[in-house]
């Protein structure tokens, strides 16, 4: 028992360190920079500015729910998993069409950077020599999310998954993380005879992710995500391991509420929906008794890739 305990404890430390590192990155200025940039915008401009990040956030958050459709009918399995989920931003994510605010005359539209776009501001001329500047972005090429998750199975061919991470930098006026997710999957192939052609499972995952603090001490961003999935996979022996290609079709929904003060100190509340709805995922895993490695790619409005390591008695 001692070795597995050490293993899990070590992984917990690894995950905690990762979250802390993310926090340190936030304290480096990206967090307050985003908040400052968003503060200039209200309404559709704020939505356009943040949409690529919300899309990436939602697409990654809804990834790595499962890497195998095989769920035993009845036995005890537990694994601690570290999925890494990523999005590479394309050119279309880097700009959006914004309109001047703050009573600027004449009202002027321009193609300007999103939050992941170029760092330089864009300035348009107005009446009488006035000018209006749109802020720059963080010049991001990619977005990644690392979320620790615990998987436990199985009762009647059903498994549960929990995602959790929390971090609160009391010294920062912004940085706070609070993620909780819970999901369940059920084996359909257990009803398809002794030797089904494929393993088949359905599942649902719900997550809530709060990031940051606003000037009033509330949540800067609160995201709710829901994923419904049908997945098929097939295990094949490969030396001392098994090789398992898999594919899945998912419906997903993500909504982010932003609560902040604009540059005049007036409170702004925004709701931004992620643009992903359906996704097709394909990938493969290597199962090696004490764990599993997997990698997959999801085709959707915002494409995503993920890979990860599961440690536990998932060799089944």
């Amino acid at each position, binding site marked *: 028992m001692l070795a597995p305990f050490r293993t899990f404890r070590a992984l917990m430390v690894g995950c905690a360190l*990762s979250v802390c590192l993310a926090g340190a990155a936030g304290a480096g200025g990206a967090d307050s920079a985003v908040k400052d940039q968003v503060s200039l915008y209200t309404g559709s401009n704020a939505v356009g500015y943040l949409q690529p990040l919300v899309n990436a956030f939602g697409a990654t958050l809804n990834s790595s729910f499962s890497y195998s459709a095989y769920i035993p009918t009845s036995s005890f399995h537990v694994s601690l998993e*570290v999925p890494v989920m*990523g999005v590479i931003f394309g050119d279309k994510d880097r700009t959006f069409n914004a309109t001047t605010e*703050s009573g600027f005359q004449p009202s002027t539209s321009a193609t300007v950077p999103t939050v992941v776009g170029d760092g*330089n501001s864009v300035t348009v001329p107005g009446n*009488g020599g006035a000018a209006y500047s749109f802020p720059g972005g963080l*010049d991001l090429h990619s977005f990644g999310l690392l979320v620790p998750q615990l998987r436990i199975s199985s009762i009647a061919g059903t498994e549960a998954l929990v995602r959790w991470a929390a971090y609160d930098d009391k010294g920062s006026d912004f940085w706070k993380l609070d993620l909780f997710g819970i999901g369940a999957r059920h084996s359909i192939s257990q009803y398809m005879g002794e030797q089904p052609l494929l393993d088949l499972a359905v599942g649902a995952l719900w997550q809530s992710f709060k990031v940051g603090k606003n000037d009033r001490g509330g949540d800067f961003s609160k995201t709710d995500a829901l994923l419904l999935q049908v997945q098929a996979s097939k295990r094949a022996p490969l030396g001392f391991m098994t090789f398992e290609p898999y594919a899945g079709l998912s419906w997903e929904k993500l909504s982010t509420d932003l609560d902040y003060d604009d*540059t005049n100190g007036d409170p702004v509340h925004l709701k931004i929906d992620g643009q992903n709805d359906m996704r097709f995922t394909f990938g493969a895993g290597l199962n090696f008794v004490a*764990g599993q490695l997997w990698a997959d790619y999801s085709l959707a409005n915002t494409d995503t890739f993920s890979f990860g390591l599961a440690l536990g008695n998932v060799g089944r």
Partner: protein
Amino acid sequence: MMKRTLAILAVCMVPLALSGCYEDKVLDIVITGETSAEFSQNETSEQWTNPVIINIAQEIRDILSRNGYDEGDLTGAHVTSASYGVTSFSQAHDWEISGAITVTYNGNTQAILNYTSQSVSAALGKKTSASLESGGVDLINAALQDFLDGSDPVLTLTINNGSTTPAPSVGDPMIFDWRAWLAIQVIVSTTASVIDPF
């Protein structure tokens, strides 16, 4: 043994991989701040003037300070818009006024906005955007540039009312308070450490 090896890898590699993903990004942050001048009118004639002094340097310092920046971060500043509105008016009948708000800086005076046949009651509680005049904008932008160059510019905003209908008198004075707002954008350059992992 394999479990332990994988665990060590996970503990060491994940944070190291993430720490290697940090990149310093330089970006322009735009902050829109407003400065305003309050005018109280108690007039018995059609034409009147009313000056208010604005310490534009201090206003910009306040805008920067409210957002956690200082003058060293500043790379640009410009006038974005101007507006006006009546904040207090309770007389029995309305007035229509026409005139200009001028700005004076370094001995030069230019109109920043004109108002024509403006109903006092119609402007009550509103913030009416005005079309800016280039002479006044240039003068304020010059003051902003002087601030960027290290000076402490002070502006004088003056209402120069040309006509009032009906004409006020000692027996029927025109009494109201109003405010002119000047929106200024300041651009600061900042460096943010972000995770750009792939």
